[in-house]
C-alpha cells in the first residue's frame, strides 16, 4: 500500500469512504510519521495519540454501521495550540498556560470533531501568536522541512511544518497579521485567512480580537477548501461572526478558472527589502495568470505602506487588554505562592517568568498606546490608517477582482537570524497585514522556488470580504497550471527528512 501520509486529504477521505483504508490505519500512519520525524521538525507541542485513535475508531464504526459521514471524516488534522481543547493541554506556546487543561472545546474544534476529523495533536507556535518564526515559542522553535536550520514561518509554524513534513494532511492555523499565509509561503503549502468573521473565534485564545481569524492549512487548494467548509459558518457564541451563508469554496476549488479575471498587482509590495528570487517567481506567476486568460495590471494602494505601523499599535493595544487575565489567580502557571507574597506579587512574579520577551514587549507597547494622553496619537491614528487601508482595498476592488503580491518579502530565513531584531522579524508580515486590518480574505499558494536558495515562494491572492470562493477559484487554476509546468506538486522537491 502507498504511503498514506503522502495522500491529499481529499484522496484520503475518498479511500476511507469507499473502504480501501480505515481511519485507524490512516491515523496510525500519521502517528508513525510523527514518531519518525517530529523530533527533528518539532511541529507538535502535544500529540494526542489515544484520543486520535479513539476518534478514528469511531469513524470506522460509524462507517461500518452505514452512517452518513462528512466529506473529511477520518482525515487527520493538526490544530494550532491556540484553540481550546476539552481535556487536552492548551498552552498558546506560552509558559504562562503550562498545565492548563481547558474545560471546553473551541467552536472550530467542536466542528472538526462533529465532521469526524481525527485530531492528532496541538502544534507549535510563537507565544500567543506573536512572531513570524516560532522562535518565540516557550517550547523551542519548529524546523522548516525544506531546511531544518530555517524557520517554518510563524506564528503558525508548527501547523505549516506538520503538513509539509507529511505529519498531517491538514492543519488549523490562525492569522492575525499573516500567521497562516507566511508559514504557508515559506513551506510551499497552501494557507487561507478567511474573511474576518467567517470562522468563529470562540475558544481561540485571543491575541488581537479585531484581527484574529482562524483558517485552513493544507498541501492543496482543494484540501484547504474542504477544511474551510468544515470550520466556517456563523456561531452564536461569537458576536463578530458573520451571519451569512459560507461562500462555496469547495465548488470554486474544483473549478479553477481565471479566464477574464481582472488581477491587480499591488504596486507597493516590491522594491527594497524584497528578495529578487521572490519577485521573479511572483512576476512569472502573474505572467502565467495572463496566459490563463486573466488581465493583470499594477494597482496602487498607497496606505499599505503604513499598515505595519498601524498594526503594531492596534494588535499590541488589544493584546495588552486580552492578556491581562493571565494573573495566576485561576489557571496556568503560579509563581511565588508560598505565603510570603501578596496577590499582586504573585501576579508579577508569574508574569515575569511566564511571559516571553516578545509578549512583554507588545503588552508594554499596547499599554502605552492606550494610555490617556497618548491614545489619540497612537491607537486613534492607527484606527484612522486602518480606515484608509480599507478604502484603498475598496477602490482597488472597484477595478479588479483580486489583488496579488508576494506573501512575504523573502524565503525562509535561518533560525536565529532575526531573533534579536524585532523590526526585521515584523517585516516578514509586511504584505499580509493589510488584509487583517481590512478584514478581507487572502490566500497563499506556492509559486515556485527562489533562484538564490531553492526555497519556496508564496503568491498572496486577496479577495473582498465574503468573496473567499474567488481565492479558491484562482488558487486552484494556478495550482493546476504550475503543476502541469513542474510535473508534480512543489512539495515533492523538498528533501526527505
Amino acid at each position: 500500500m502507498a504511503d498514506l501520509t503522502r495522500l491529499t486529504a481529499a484522496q484520503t477521505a475518498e479511500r476511507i469512504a469507499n473502504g480501501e483504508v480505515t481511519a485507524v490505519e490512516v491515523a496510525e500512519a500519521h502517528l508513525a510519521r510523527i514518531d519518525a520525524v517530529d523530533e527533528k521538525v518539532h511541529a507538535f507541542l502535544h500529540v494526542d495519540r489515544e484520543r486520535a485513535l479513539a476518534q478514528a475508531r469511531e469513524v470506522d464504526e460509524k462507517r461500518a454501521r452505514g452512517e452518513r459521514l462528512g466529506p473529511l471524516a477520518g482525515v487527520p488534522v493538526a490544530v494550532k495550540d491556540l484553540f481550546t481543547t476539552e481535556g487536552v493541554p492548551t498552552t498558546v506556546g506560552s509558559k504562562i498556560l503550562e498545565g492548563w487543561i481547558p474545560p471546553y472545546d473551541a467552536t472550530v474544534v467542536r466542528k472538526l470533531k462533529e465532521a469526524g476529523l481525527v485530531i492528532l495533536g496541538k502544534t507549535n507556535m510563537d507565544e500567543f501568536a506573536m512572531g513570524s518564526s516560532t522562535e518565540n515559542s516557550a517550547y523551542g522553535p519548529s524546523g522548516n522541512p525544506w531546511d531544518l536550520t530555517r524557520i517554518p514561518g510563524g506564528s503558525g509554524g508548527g501547523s505549516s511544518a506538520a503538513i509539509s513534513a507529511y505529519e498531517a494532511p491538514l492543519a488549523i492555523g490562525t492569522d492575525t497579521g499573516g500567521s497562516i499565509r507566511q508559514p504557508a509561503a515559506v513551506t510551499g503549502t497552501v494557507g487561507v485567512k478567511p474573511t474576518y468573521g467567517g470562522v468563529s473565534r470562540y475558544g481561540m485564545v485571543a491575541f488581537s480580537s479585531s484581527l484574529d481569524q482562524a483558517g485552513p492549512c493544507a498541501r492543496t487548494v482543494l484540501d484547504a477548501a474542504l477544511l474551510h467548509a468544515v470550520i466556517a459558518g456563523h456561531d452564536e457564541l461569537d458576536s463578530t461572526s458573520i451571519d451569512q451563508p459560507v461562500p462555496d469554496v469547495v465548488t470554486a476549488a474544483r473549478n479553477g478558472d481565471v479566464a477574464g479575471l481582472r488581477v491587480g498587482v499591488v504596486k507597493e509590495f516590491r522594491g527594497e527589502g524584497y528578495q529578487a528570487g521572490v519577485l521573479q517567481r511572483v512576476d512569472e506567476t502573474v505572467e502565467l495568470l495572463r496566459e490563463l486568460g486573466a488581465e493583470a495590471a499594477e494597482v496602487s494602494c498607497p496606505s499599505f505602506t503604513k499598515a505595519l505601523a498601524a498594526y503594531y499599535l492596534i494588535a499590541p493595544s488589544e493584546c495588552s487588554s486580552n492578556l491581562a487575565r493571565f494573573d495566576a489567580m485561576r489557571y496556568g502557571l503560579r509563581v511565588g505562592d508560598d505565603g510570603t507574597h501578596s496577590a499582586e506579587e504573585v501576579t508579577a512574579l508569574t508574569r515575569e517568568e511566564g511571559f516571553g520577551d516578545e509578549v512583554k514587549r507588545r503588552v508594554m507597547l499596547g499599554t502605552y498606546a492606550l494610555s490617556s494622553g497618548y491614545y489619540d496619537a497612537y491607537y486613534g491614528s492607527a484606527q484612522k490608517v486602518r480606515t484608509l487601508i480599507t478604502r484603498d482595498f475598496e477602490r482597488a476592488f472597484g477595478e479588479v477582482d483580486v489583488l496579488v503580491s508576494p506573501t512575504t518579502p523573502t524565503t525562509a530565513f535561518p533560525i536565529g537570524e532575526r531573533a534579536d531584531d524585532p523590526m526585521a522579524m515584523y517585516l516578514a508580515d509586511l504584505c499580509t497585514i493589510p488584509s487583517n486590518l481590512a478584514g478581507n480574505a487572502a490566500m497563499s499558494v506556492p509559486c515556485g522556488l527562489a533562484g538564490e536558495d531553492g526555497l519556496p515562494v508564496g503568491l498572496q491572492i486577496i479577495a473582498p470580504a465574503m468573496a473567499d470562493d474567488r481565492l479558491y477559484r484562482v488558487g486552484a487554476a494556478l495550482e493546476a497550471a504550475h503543476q502541469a509546468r513542474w510535473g508534480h506538486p512543489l512539495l515533492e522537491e523538498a528533501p526527505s527528512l
Partner: protein
Amino acid sequence: MTVTELVPYEDALAVYDPVMGLEVHVELGTATKMFCGCSTTLGADANSQTCPTCLGLPGALPVVNATGVESAVRIGLALNCEIAEWCRFARKNYFYPDMPKNFQTSQYDEPIAFNGHLDVQLEDGEVFRVEIERAHMEEDTGKSTHIGGATGRIHGASHSLLDYNRAGIPLIEIVTKPIEGAGERAPEVAKAYVAELRELIKALGVSEARMEMGQMRCDVNLSLRPKGEKTFGTRSETKNVNSLRSVERAARFEIQRHAAVLDAGEKIVQETRHFHEENGSTTSGRVKEEAEDYRYFPEPDLVPVAPSREWVEELRAGLPELPRLRRNRLREEWGISQHEMQSVLNAGAVGLIVATVDAGAPADQARKWWMGELARRANESGTELADLPIGPEDVARVCALVGEGSLNDKLARQTIEGVLDGEGTPDEVVEKRGLKVVSDEGALGTAVDEAIAGNPDIAEKIRGGKVQAAGALVGAVMKATRGQADAARVRELILEKLGVEG
C-alpha cells in the same frame, strides 16, 4: 488627613455651597448574565453559576444579553434621556482579583442613554430636578471575601475567597450631572433622588432594586465651594452607600468634614472613602494620586448596539406611569396629605395598598390596615411589609367581611392575626376561630334581655331619656357575647326593647 472636629452642619452651609454627583449601579433582574447564559439567581453555591465566558477563561467570548439592552433603553427613556442610535461597549482596564478578565466590559464615551433628568419630590412637596449625565451598560465583578484580616478588607488578610457567580451580572450605571443649588437640602435631595430612582427601577420591573441585597448601590461624590464661587472644589467619592438613610448621612457627614478641612486652611484630598453604617462617618480609602488610567478602548469582541428608532418608540409607548406622577394621582384619589403619602411610601406600602384596592377594598380601609396593624407587625418582626405572610387579597377579604357586617373591628384584627400565624385564609380563620359576629337575633335578644334585667337602674335611666347610658348595656352584651356581636345592632335592640328612639 484626619479631622477630629466636624463643623456643625448649619455653620458649614453658612459658608459653603455643596455640589454633588451621584453614581448609582443597578443590578438588572435579567434571567441570565450580561454576556453569557449563566443564571443570575442569588444565593446559589459559590461559583456554581459560571462558564468559560464569565470566568474569563482564555478563548471565551461575550455575547450581549438583548434583555439587558432593552432594560437599559427603558431606564434611559424613563429618565428622559436621549437614546444613542449607535453605541459600543468599551473595555475598562484595571486589575482586581475578582474581575475575571482584568477588564470590565462597560461603556465609555458612547453610553446608550444620555442627557436626561429625574424630578424628585422632597418631603415638603417641593420638586427638585436632577439632571442625568448618562446611563450605561456594564457587567458586575465577582465577589471577594477576605479572610484573616481585622477589617475584612484585602490588606491584612491571610487569604481571599472568590465567588464568580456575580461576575457578569448586568449593571446599569446611572450618573447625574453635578447637582448644584440644593444648598442645605443637598443631603435630602441625594436621598430623595436615590429613593425616586429606586421606585422608578421597580416600576419598570427591570430590577427589584433592593439596596440591602446590593441590587442597587450608590456612590456619593461631594465637594464644597465657598458661596458665590463658580468653580467646583475638590471632591471626595464615598463608595457603596447602600441605604437611603446612609446616602443622606454620608452627604451630611462629608459636608461637615469638608468644611472642617477647608476651614483649617487645608486641601481636600481627592480620594475614595468608605462609609460606616454604625456611626455615619466616612474614612479614607484609596488616595487617587492621579486620575486612574483605565485605558478605555472599544470592545473588539462585541458588535455595536444600534437600537432602531421604531423599537425605541415602541419601548417608550410601553413605559409605565412614572412613580412620582403615580404617587400624586394616588394621593389625590386616596384623599391624603403629602405627609401621609410620604409615610405610606416610606413603609413600602404603596403597591400593597393599590393591590388591596384592586382586590375590592375601599382605599381608606386598605390604607388603615397596611399602615396600622400590619405596619406594626412588620416593625415588630423586623420584616418588610411585602414579606409578611399576608397578601393584598387577604386584606381585601377582611375589609369585605367588615363591610358586610360579618366582622367587627376587633374580630377583623383577630382574623388578620390568624392569617399572619399561618392558620389559613381569612375565611378559614373566621371559621376555625369562630369569629363571626353574633347576628342570630334570638340569641342576641336573650343577651339584651339579660343585660336589661341585670341592670334595672341603667334601664330606668334610658327609659327616662338618658340615651347615652345605653353604652353600659351595650358593653354588658358585648362582654356576654365575647365581643362577637355587632355593637351598633346591640344598641338598636336595647333602645327598641326599652321603647326609646335612638
